[in-house]
């Protein structure tokens, strides 16, 4: 049976991301609901102009732990307050009064909450008037996502089951189901089976996995964690329902052969393992994504790897995305643009280097284009072939040791 293509979905987490959503760089968009509450007008405009299909991640997990929805002053962020109000309409739930598991009084109210979350996804963008243009098509999500909690314990498993069923019923159609597994449970096959048992297949159009806090480096260096992910993907794929990943990396895209059919990732190229809480931001560090080694490196290392190469060697080993190719065509070395930095003065602390705004924007394009190439490669070829080619490329660029992690992944996939 021919494999379905690997679908490339990019997550919009902040307003700045909207500039970068374009066909050819991704297949689809998923917008975080908290971001949508923050910037509904600009999000609607960008989606209308690009015509890309989209869905909304309801991010119900953010209401699970108080620290995940509060700002640095300990106050509920205004966008979360608005989002929470939409989710608890018609219930007695005080959504930001404490951990969600403690503030929802009964199963009936969990059911109402699930229906509200579905209604929010379906109608939130329809309410936004077009930008002084008439006769624009209405914005409708391509899929509806059931609300879900991080599955810390059996208690969340039970609620997740209830939310999935109530979500599908409210939608009147099959819904996507997030399965969010913390590292503690990911190591234990028995725990994974309990989670799988609690995940319904009736009324489910696709599963979306997420393992918060697990970076790619951790995943490749911890066989138990990688084994856990492989177990989840292969078991869910057996149900003949598409399986995606909510915060995918190169390693997750490599699992296309064993059942991953969609990868979602955000526009940040520094791998922080996508923890469940809100990204606090801060000063950007000087790192760039190097497709030749499939991870990001510091600016000085990137200079050492790429500057000495002529254009042909650079495009073969370091990166051949449209941006890097175009830069050479324009007579400029891409690293001159990607590695542009500035000194930032911080009170009572030593000065720091940070990328310029221009470098941040160009690195975003470079990262998205590189990821799209990776997704296309795993979509078109068997993972072992892609990995073999990438191991050789990494070794040619940075030495044999750079290929070690990829080799370990290839071994695991071979065993799987």
């Amino acid at each position, binding site marked *: 049976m021919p494999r379905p293509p690997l679908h490339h979905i990019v997550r919009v987490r902040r307003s700045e991301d909207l500039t970068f959503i*374009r066909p050819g760089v991704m297949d689809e968009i998923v917008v975080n609901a908290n971001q949508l509450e923050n910037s509904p*007008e600009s999000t609607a*405009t960008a989606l209308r102009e*690009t015509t890309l299909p989209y869905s909304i991640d309801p991010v119900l997990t953010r209401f699970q732990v108080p620290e995940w929805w509060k700002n640095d002053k300990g106050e509920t962020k205004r966008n979360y307050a608005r989002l929470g109000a939409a989710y608890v309409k018609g219930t007695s739930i005080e959504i930001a009064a404490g951990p969600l598991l403690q503030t929802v009084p009964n199963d009936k109210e969990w059911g109402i909450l699930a229906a509200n979350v579905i209604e929010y996804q379906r109608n939130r963008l329809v309410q936004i008037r077009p930008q002084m243009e008439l006769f624009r098509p209405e914005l409708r999500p391509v899929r509806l996502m059931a609300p879900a909690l991080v599955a810390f314990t059996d208690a969340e498993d039970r609620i997740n089951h209830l939310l999935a069923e109530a979500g599908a019923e409210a939608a009147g159609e099959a819904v996507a189901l997030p399965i969010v597994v913390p590292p503690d449970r990911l190591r234990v096959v028995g725990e994974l089976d309990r989670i799988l048992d609690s995940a319904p297949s009736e009324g489910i159009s696709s599963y979306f996995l997420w393992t918060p806090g697990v970076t790619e480096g951790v995943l490749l260096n911890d066989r138990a964690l990688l084994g856990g992910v492989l177990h989840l993907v292969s078991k869910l794929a057996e149900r003949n329902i598409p399986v995606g990943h909510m915060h995918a990396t190169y390693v997750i895209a490599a699992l296309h052969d064993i059942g991953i059919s969609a990868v979602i990732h955000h526009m940040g190229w520094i791998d922080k393992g996508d923890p469940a809480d809100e990204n606090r931001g801060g000063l950007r560090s000087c790192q760039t994504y190097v497709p030749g080694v499939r991870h990001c490196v510091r600016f000085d290392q990137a200079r050492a790897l790429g500057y000495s190469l002529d254009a042909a060697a650079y495009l073969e080993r370091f990166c051949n995305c449209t941006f890097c190719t175009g830069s050479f065509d324009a007579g400029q070395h891409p690293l001159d643009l990607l590695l542009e930095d500035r000194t930032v003065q911080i009170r009572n602390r030593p000065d720091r280097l940070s990328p310029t705004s221009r470098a941040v924007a160009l690195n975003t*394009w470079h990262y998205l284009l590189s990821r799209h190439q990776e997704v296309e490669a795993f979509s078109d070829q068997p993972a072992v072939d892609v990995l073999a080619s990438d191991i050789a490329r990494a070794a040619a660029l940075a030495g044999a040791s750079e290929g070690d992690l990829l080799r370990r992944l290839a071994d695991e996939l071979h065993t799987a």
Partner: protein
Amino acid sequence: MTRDRRDAILDQDWSAAWETLPEAPPLVPRPKTAQVTLRIPTRLLARIKAVAAAKSLPYHALARAWIIDALRTLSPPVNSALVDEPQAEQMNIKLENESLDDLKSRADELRRPYHRLAREWIEAALTREEESLGIEPSPAGRPAIKDLMVLLLHSQSRRGDDAIRGMTRLQKLLFVVEQKLASEHSHFYAYNFGPFSEEVNDAADALRLAGFLRGSEAVKAQPPSFAEMMATAEERRGPGDEAEAREFALNERGHEAAERLRQSSRAYDQLFAYIRQLRQEWDSPRLDQLVDRIYEKWPNFTEKSQIREKVKSRSARKRRS
């Protein structure tokens, strides 16, 4: 006229007819020395201004005309629909002494304070005028920040400049517009540097992504070329790296969209006229002048401001000098 006829007229007793003759107008009008000061809700004042702009009349003169008309037609008192709203604004209306006397005696007849009677007559006349002019009390219920921003950028400052430099100035001017329109539920709230609304940033982003702002192109439905990627990067250069303020100005496409919006209804046309007037009045050359005025006029929006004391002492210094 014959002698007999003249004698007959002179012999006639005119005393009864004398009483029925109209009073001759004074050769020189009495000066308008009297003034009535009315406290009115902010929303009512905004509506009066909108109708005055529609009729190209000063709003004080229009309000005076409504009072005089009500006196002439012996209008009955009307219960106010805005009775619960705080009377936060003040309007001074010059009247002739006789008109003020008439207002007082009419109020006395109706057993009402004359200020209240005048306010009620104004409100009643305003509602009638709004109906006849097709002006909604508030266009589309509550104008979106995006629409207010487009109309603001479609207008010009007193210096003839349509561009607004800096997000702070854009935030503050839209705050003034919204307050003057007296929306019941403000988009703005007290924040670190005075009144703020994230909807302003969102609307500015929406205009940029739609390609309505100078220096921006609409987000496209095709893969990006190298030149387009560079353009998005250059567009961002500045705010993060230098102290240079962002400039917000409509391009040709944006002005066309604004014009379409303005012409979409009479209410929006009037709204634009009012916003243009406000921009002339408030878009001062120096940002601190604008900030100081706002802090003085709307102190409840400065409660959380980190620069409140600084602005206060700056304003005090200005007053002293």
